[in-house]
């Protein structure tokens, strides 16, 4: 594949948090390529570094966090590619990028909108921030966008305050804020976790519809295997700050190779699939990120672990870009 086909290439990204004297390696060498116009799912347990990866892409890390190593190459369609990791958090280039070229929507729509401003004003502000546009045109674009996101009576509802909206409606407003500037990449950090299941489906469907119409790329972060099965083209499985397995959706679901991915798939219910099977939780808990085991980080919980696993396993291609970080990936014990 051509380099230009990847909108984002992350190479060996390391993001650390310094808390007192402790250093937490939240992201520890992530390498990822995101295909333009496709949807990439980033899955993993809580605390595995998914959100930190996303925040590193936007350089929206809290004060204690910083990118220590690696590059994040962003290739916008109409301008020069650049390495996001090379700029300072407050750099003008990044401020212009945020919201204009890369947008982000957050987990909790309830608190992602400012309670004291009308929702219309909040959406309009994200246009005005990046474009010179007349008030009238901005209002029209806002109403059009909300209508696309099927908010009824959008021209009236832009005058409402956030507390007058339900959770699902607020998330639509957030999506509208993210998409109104026509970004090339939308990062959705657990966009439906705070919503109930029926609304979840609606929001995900809307995101897919918008993607078809506007052609942006989505990185969706979730711990819900159902959502990635539904939405994603490519899936990256993360564990303790590293990508354990990466591949096309079919590879991950039909040919899961890393023991962690397999364990993860066994631990979630699949509708209409062996109703009497018991779910198998992954034994043990995630290790303390400031005190990581040597070698493979999944070793303490892995059924296949051997002496070999005390050395860090390589990140290898097992065919067609299906990448796995395990000693037993290539026809080893993992494929029993």
């Amino acid at each position: 594949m051509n380099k230009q086909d990847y909108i984002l290439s992350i190479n060996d990204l390391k993001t650390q948090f310094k808390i007192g004297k402790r250093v937490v390696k939240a992201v520890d060498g992530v390498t990822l390529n995101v295909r333009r116009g496709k949807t990439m799912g980033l899955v993993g347990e809580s605390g595995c570094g998914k959100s930190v990866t996303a925040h590193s892409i936007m350089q929206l890390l809290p004060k204690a966090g910083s990118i220590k190593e690696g590059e994040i190459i962003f290739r916008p369609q109409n301008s020069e590619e650049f390495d996001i990791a090379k700029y300072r958090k407050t750099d003008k280039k990044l401020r212009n990028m945020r919201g204009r070229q890369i947008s982000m929507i957050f987990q909790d729509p309830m608190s992602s909108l400012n309670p004291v401003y009308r929702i219309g004003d909040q959406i309009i502000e994200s246009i005005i921030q990046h474009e010179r546009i007349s008030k009238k045109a901005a209002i029209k674009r806002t109403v059009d966008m909300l209508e696309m996101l099927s908010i009824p009576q959008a021209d009236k509802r832009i005058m409402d305050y956030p507390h007058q909206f339900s959770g699902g409606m607020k998330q639509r407003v957030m999506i509208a804020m993210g998409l109104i500037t026509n970004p090339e990449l939308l990062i959705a950090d657990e966009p439906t976790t705070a919503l109930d299941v029926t609304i979840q489906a609606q929001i995900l469907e809307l995101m897919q519809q918008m993607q078809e119409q506007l052609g942006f790329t989505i990185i969706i972060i979730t711990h819900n295997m159902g959502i990635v099965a539904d939405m994603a083209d490519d899936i990256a499985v993360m564990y303790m700050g590293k990508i354990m397995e990466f591949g096309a959706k079919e590879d991950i679901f039909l040919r899961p190779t890393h023991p962690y991915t397999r364990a993860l798939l066994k631990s979630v219910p699949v509708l209409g699939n062996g109703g009497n099977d018991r779910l198998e939780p992954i034994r043990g808990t995630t290790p303390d990120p400031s005190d990581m085991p040597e070698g493979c980080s999944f070793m303490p919980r892995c059924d296949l672990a051997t002496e070999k696993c005390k050395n860090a396993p390589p990140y290898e291609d097992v065919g067609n870009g299906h990448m796995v970080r395990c000693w037993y990936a290539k026809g080893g014990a993992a494929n029993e």
Partner: protein
Amino acid sequence: MATVLASKQKVKKSSLAKRNLQKLLNNKLAVFGLIVVTAMILACIAAPLLTPYDPMKISLSERDLEPSSNHLFGTDKLGRDVFARTLYGGRMSILIGLSGAIGGMLLGVIFGSLCGFFGGTLDAIFVKIAELVSVVPQLLLVLVLSTFLGAGVQNLIYVFMFTGWVATFRLVRGRFFSLREESFVEACRAFGIGNLSIAFKHILPNCLGPVAVQLTLNTAGFILQEAALSFIGLGVPSGVPTWGNIMNAAKEIIVITQSPWLWIPPGIAIALFVLGVNSLGDGMRDVLDPSQL
């Protein structure tokens, strides 16, 4: 930004104002406060219409008169009409209290926003200053400052500003600490909005409810302090009528027992106004929170 839509549809804006007004009107205490405060302010402004007397004019032939139809609250030892002095004095007292409180609020809001948002060394410095101001007994501080700057209406306002910003500063700073972790602030960052704009345009409006309440409390407090300072002769120069200055006459036992009309009217005026302002502030706290129905 808020004005973009406000200019588009005036009707809808007023419906929110209407709802807020309705909320205020449902609160009996707040209505009482609103009526008292408005009535007293109007009476003070309209003083020339309500009384023909000049509050400063000395008339030795009319000294120490009891209240009568001619002089509603009687006259003082120099023959000045007490009713006129109470009205004109109210102008000055309210002006001092309000401008001191507004000035203090502005300082407190600006320092509080910057410290609460950026934290760090700036915050540490201002917190230390605020602590310094608040460990010295306030009356003592006011006394020292007003002897330092000299008596005078303007100086008194400066003194109140200097001592009055601390409460608002703490309030705003504290609110900022919790609000800056909210995800709407993160969302603002994700949309490329700059720091100062996030602090003053997005976070600050969320703190204004409590700030308004603090403003009313400070106004009431400063009116009381002005009265106390003027009573002991350290506030406003005795030539200028204020509620405190009028009560100054009641320093002598003989006045307290023999001429109650000299101190009861300004005393009641102070008590009533402070009570009104405080009840209004309480009501405003409930109304100004947009997330509360």
